[in-house]
């Protein structure tokens, strides 16, 4: 009888725990179909506008290969610590002018606005048109100051050179002690620093140490 009671308690505990596993339905939302043809201008012109339009909404636009005219950027949901939005602007030269396409993807419900809203704004930023304010990306409130494992916000010091410091901000920007800027993204405990190239690092379980890619950093928290 006592064994039965014990088993019952174990089952109740499992059930209680399982109640908190109710994952929100999440899905990928992809927007395509915005295309713009310019009968003047070069691929370089298109690339410059593509980069600027992307970076109005998403940090750190990169070209898939130099001179390709294919640009993309990702946006991070700080609250979840993972990328939840992205966009690609692809430029191709024509005999006269260029053609450019706009493609956006977001993860719902983690992202606060749909893919088409993001794409419309990026496209309108590129070739002109009405800009509609996008819903604000959820942020941890207040701005995190501790050694959170879901973000890198705070001040970091190189373990090998105490004069080398990095300030990482909520929006994914980083700045070193010389004023050189870059970006950070965290996915689980894997961190990508874009700073003189891309570097992959691991965040320690206590959120205090970053290591990998030639860097060993400690957060002041």
């Amino acid at each position, binding site marked *: 009888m006592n064994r039965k009671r014990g088993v019952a308690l174990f089952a*109740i505990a*499992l059930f209680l725990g399982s109640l908190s596993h109710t*994952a929100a339905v999440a*899905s*990928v939302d*992809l927007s395509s179909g915005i295309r713009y043809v310019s009968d003047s201008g070069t691929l370089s012109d298109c690339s410059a506008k593509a980069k600027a339009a992307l970076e109005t909404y998403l940090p750190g636009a990169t070209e898939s290969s130099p001179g390709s005219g294919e640009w993309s950027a990702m946006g991070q949901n700080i609250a979840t610590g993972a*990328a939840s939005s992205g966009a690609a602007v*692809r430029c191709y030269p024509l005999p006269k002018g260029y053609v450019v396409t706009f493609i956006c993807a977001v993860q719902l419900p983690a992202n606060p606005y749909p893919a088409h809203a993001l794409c419309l704004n990026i496209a309108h930023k590129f070739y002109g048109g009405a800009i509609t304010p996008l819903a604000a990306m959820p942020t941890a409130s207040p701005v995190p100051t501790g050694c959170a494992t879901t973000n890198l916000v705070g001040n970091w010091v190189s373990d090998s050179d105490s004069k080398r410091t990095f300030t990482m901000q909520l929006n994914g920007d980083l700045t070193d002690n010389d004023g050189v800027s870059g970006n950070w993204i965290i*996915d689980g405990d894997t961190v990508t620093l874009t700073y003189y190239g891309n570097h992959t690092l691991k965040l320690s379980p206590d959120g205090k140490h970053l290591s990998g890619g030639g860097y060993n950093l400690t957060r002041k928290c």
Partner: protein
Amino acid sequence: MTRISRCRVALLAVGLIAAFGALSTPAPAALDMNVGVGKVVANQPLSACNGSAKTALNSVLQDAVELGGDTGEWLAFGAPDSANGSTAAATIHCYPLGSAYLVTFTCAAQVPPSPDSAAALCTKLTAAFDSGAR
């Protein structure tokens, strides 16, 4: 506290740990996006691109649609799973260039739970497109 009570408390604790312990382990789902291949196919009509785009999307994802009709811009999503909506999507764009066409592949996936990264999805689509275009 009796021995039986201690046993019950221990079992309750083990059960709670077993149930809640798993919560902290999964990595958060992240959006993955890939700018796939863009290439010019010479001496082929736009209709060939459209046909291959639709076939490729339907073979890797499902229910490919041409946006707006006769635009050459094709879109498809993966089958929704039981816990989520579609966790993979892709678009293939066909654009006429005289007697040739330009085709581009762009993919997105939510990883996890999508088994394919966006890059893997685009690789599959490109292969399916190329086999259909032969």
